[in-house]
């Protein structure tokens, strides 16, 4: 097998520092947004006692789910023994750690008492899916960190497959845990189903790979390194499979609900009458997130680098829309305490809840995205994560 040279990104150009500074600025905005929310309380957000999880959760859960998926490429390399993916693995691991960090920061900084994080680290209720996730997220950092170490240090290279397999199994459990945050909720019609766990796993594959592809292409384009079509086309095909699988799960979930009369009202809300949520579902999640990317990637357009990037960006946009519908849409629909009766009260029972995200919420979420990208941009400068070249000839040698 041909050897691959990994090299740090020089990172001394004005463009690099502009990118670094730009991302840093968004991290700063995120910190200020958190400070504002923490000082005044959640009264300055669009969240209330009806929509209790808002835009920060959309960003946080999206990033955490994408983090798990970003590890795909590394898993394929080590767990499934595909040599072609091996040079792509270190970036996959670091991106996955960075996205996880960004997501978790948003999640914990949106707590009503974010100053009590230590309480969450020292008091556990093992019946809570949140508690399980605390361990799953911490373990993820340890395992993927160790896995990355085996990739970078020749002395421990022999443990790479073991570490990779452990990380692979762990992240499947982790995304099962993330999906089960909602799957284990009995109160709301759109949650409380085992469907959410595998659906979140397949969504993580799609969102994570789309982000990975964009970061990979950007890193090679902006550093003037060669990224051959062989790699892009292979990963593109993989993305097609994942996006199609997401669509399949979403269709099965809603079709099953539509069969049961008790879910007709909530399904009508998401699919037909829900205003912004209906629009986000059909236009955002289905059209932008699934159908258009599939058309692009499966048609002739899919042979062009630019269009592959467009498809990836659309998958990400669709993914954020999906999280918005899944998290906020499900809360917007009122709890059905008395099926068949019309409810009204001073506490907004029986009415569809509206939600308008505030500026601090948006910037807290964007801060999480920025910190994920900032960590990645910094890591490729200080660590040998990227192959010096991924031209078709080099990649072809790996396969033989």
């Amino acid at each position: 097998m041909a050897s691959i040279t990994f090299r740090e990104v020089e990172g001394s150009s004005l463009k690099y520092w502009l990118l670094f500074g730009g991302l840093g600025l968004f991290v700063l905005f995120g910190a200020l947004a958190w400070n504002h929310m923490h000082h005044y309380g959640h009264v300055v957000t669009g969240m209330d006692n009806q929509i209790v999880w808002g835009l920060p959760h959309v960003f946080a859960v999206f990033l955490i789910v994408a983090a798990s998926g970003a590890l795909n490429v590394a898993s394929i390399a080590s767990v499934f023994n595909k040599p072609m993916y091996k040079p792509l693995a270190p970036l996959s691991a670091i991106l996955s750690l960075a996205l996880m960090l960004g997501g978790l920061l948003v999640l914990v900084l949106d707590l009503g008492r974010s100053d009590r994080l230590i309480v969450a680290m020292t008091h556990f209720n093992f019946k809570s899916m949140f508690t399980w996730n605390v361990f799953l997220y911490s373990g993820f950092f340890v395992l993927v960190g160790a896995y990355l170490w085996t990739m970078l240090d020749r002395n421990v290279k022999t443990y790479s497959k073991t570490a990779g397999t452990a990380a692979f199994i762990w992240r499947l459990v982790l995304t099962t845990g993330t999906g089960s945050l909602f799957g284990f909720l009995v109160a709301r019609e759109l949650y409380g189903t085992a469907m959410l766990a595998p659906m979140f796993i397949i969504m993580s594959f799609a969102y994570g790979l789309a982000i990975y592809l964009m970061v990979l292409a950007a890193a090679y384009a902006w550093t003037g390194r060669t990224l051959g079509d062989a790699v892009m086309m292979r990963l593109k095909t993989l993305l097609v499979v994942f996006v199609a699988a997401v669509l399949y799960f979403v269709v099965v979930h809603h079709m099953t609900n539509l069969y049961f009369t008790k879910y007709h009202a909530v399904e009508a809300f998401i699919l037909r009458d829900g205003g912004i949520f209906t629009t986000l579902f059909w236009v955002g999640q289905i059209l932008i997130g699934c159908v258009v990317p599939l058309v692009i990637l499966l048609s002739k357009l899919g042979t062009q680098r630019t269009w592959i990037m467009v498809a990836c960006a659309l998958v990400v946009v669709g993914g954020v829309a999906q999280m918005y519908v899944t998290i906020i849409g499900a809360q917007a629909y009122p709890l059905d305490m008395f099926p068949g009766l019309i409810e009204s009260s001073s506490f907004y029972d029986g009415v569809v809840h509206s939600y308008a995200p505030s500026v601090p919420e948006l910037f807290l979420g964007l801060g999480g995205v920025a910190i994920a990208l900032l960590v990645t941009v910094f890591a490729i400068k200080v660590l040998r994560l990227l192959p010096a070249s991924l031209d078709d000839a080099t990649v072809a040698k790996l396969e033989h």
Partner: protein
Amino acid sequence: MSELNQMSNQAPASPERRRFVGVATAAAGLAIAPGVMLVEVAHGRPEDQAASSAVRWGMLVDATKCATGCNDCVTACSTENGWTPVAESAHPKQAPQWIRKLELQDPLTQMETNLPMMCQHCAEPPCVDVCPTGASFKRADGIVLVNRHTCIGCRYCMMACPYKARSLVHESLNDTQKPDVPRGIGCVESCTLCVQKVDRGDGNTACAEACTAAGHDALLFGDMNDPESEISKRLRELPTKQVRADLNLNLGVRYHGI
């Protein structure tokens, strides 16, 4: 310590100081006495004695007696527990509501029902299941509470509650707080079945007292484990339902007339 000894050796106790110590002791005694007396008089549970599972506090709501337009239970709860009534809040959608009047209407028959809705004090509370830190807990006597010291404000319990019984404190609290009802910004709260009154030995909640005072008698609080209690007797006679009985949570609040 040696400095203190030196001081006491050098300065003999003055008459003023003796008088002050005497007055202070008397004042302290006066301050403590009513508390001690109250415990004895009301037969409340002493602080060092844990709540007992022999008791299950609960409530019977007779929706047929709950009057349209009457909000006395809500007002009484707000006054007792120190939360600002929603009508006075600058942010009504974010204002906590421990109890609310729910109006129901059957679209086919047009039949209208009124009832108060609050924490149902489930025997199997979903909020306790999902709470990551264990801040959400059920006391041995069936009262579901939030430990304000370990609540991190994640709102997972609010996502899990089928009764929309919980509220997050979205902003700094004003000075209406009650000394025996701890509350705080960023924490989740809900009906406590007036736990401070129960522990004091009042034997009733503020909402039930207000309902009786208004002459409606729609709310009856008591020990559902005691077959001789008024609530147990009434529950034996009246057909009652649990809200969302399909979830099988074994509720501490039972409704008649729904």
